[in-house]
């Protein structure tokens, strides 16, 4: 049961990560995120530098919101957008986790190589055994 729960959680985390990657796969959306990484901004401020309609920019903003990369809050009549750094932590988290895993595994691999050499168990000339 616990296993199923953790699998479900992992699956939803995967879906979330995929949404973040998809959202950031577009150059306009990356530019919006870079703009917001400097400071929060109104929708109109964000749309200004782009050579496209406010409507088109709004569509990109909605994709970013849906993925959780950016957040929107109201200040009076203005809609203020800001970056949700937590969603980006997840990407960095994946990279850090995998790097840590491989560094540790390669350490273990090197230790095993040392052991095998000591034991003279690893004879490259015998390599045909078990490889096919």
């Amino acid at each position, binding site marked *: 049961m616990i296993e199923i729960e953790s699998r479900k959680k992992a699956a939803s985390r995967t879906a979330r990560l995929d949404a973040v990657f998809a959202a950031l796969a577009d150059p306009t959306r990356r530019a919006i995120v870079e703009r917001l990484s400097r400071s929060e901004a109104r929708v109109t401020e964000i749309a200004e530098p782009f050579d496209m309609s406010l409507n088109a920019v709004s569509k990109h903003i909605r994709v970013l919101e849906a993925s959780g990369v950016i957040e929107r809050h109201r200040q009076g009549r203005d809609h203020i957008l800001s970056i949700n750094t937590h969603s980006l*932590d997840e990407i960095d988290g994946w990279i850090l986790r995998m790097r840590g*895993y491989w560094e540790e595994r390669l350490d273990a691999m090197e230790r095993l190589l040392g052991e095998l050499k000591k034991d003279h168990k690893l004879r490259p000339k015998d390599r045909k055994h078990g*490889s096919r």
Partner: protein
Amino acid sequence: MAHGETTGPIVQVRRRVRASAEEIFELWTKPDLMARWMSPFPGAVDCKASCDFRPGGTFSLVMSSGESSREVSGTYVQIDRPHKLVFTWMGPLTNHANTLVTLELNPRGDETDLVLTHERLPTPAMLEGHTKGWGHILDHLADAVSRT
């Protein structure tokens, strides 16, 4: 499989190993040897590996302790003994998403330069966008996060 074309984030680890490429290749492809170093739970956990070593063949690594078990599995994509091994990789650490691992072994005298590349495979949604790679955006984002 050129890395320049990938759209997901990439993890790359390089190191120089005091062994021949052939010796290292053995450790990655023989189940009894795989079981001795690939498990992240050394000692305390029973690890069983199996593989059908050919392009398109699958491998699995099952680590069990008591009632719980974890499995890592994948499919061999390219086998170029003893220089290159490419396989897909799926397990708890990848959130059960399919990923691609490329192992490259370049002999340097008695030693070997090992380059391990692990990348998320792009999903259809990601392929719809046009990406130039992740290093750039992640650099910016890391800057942004550290400035706050």
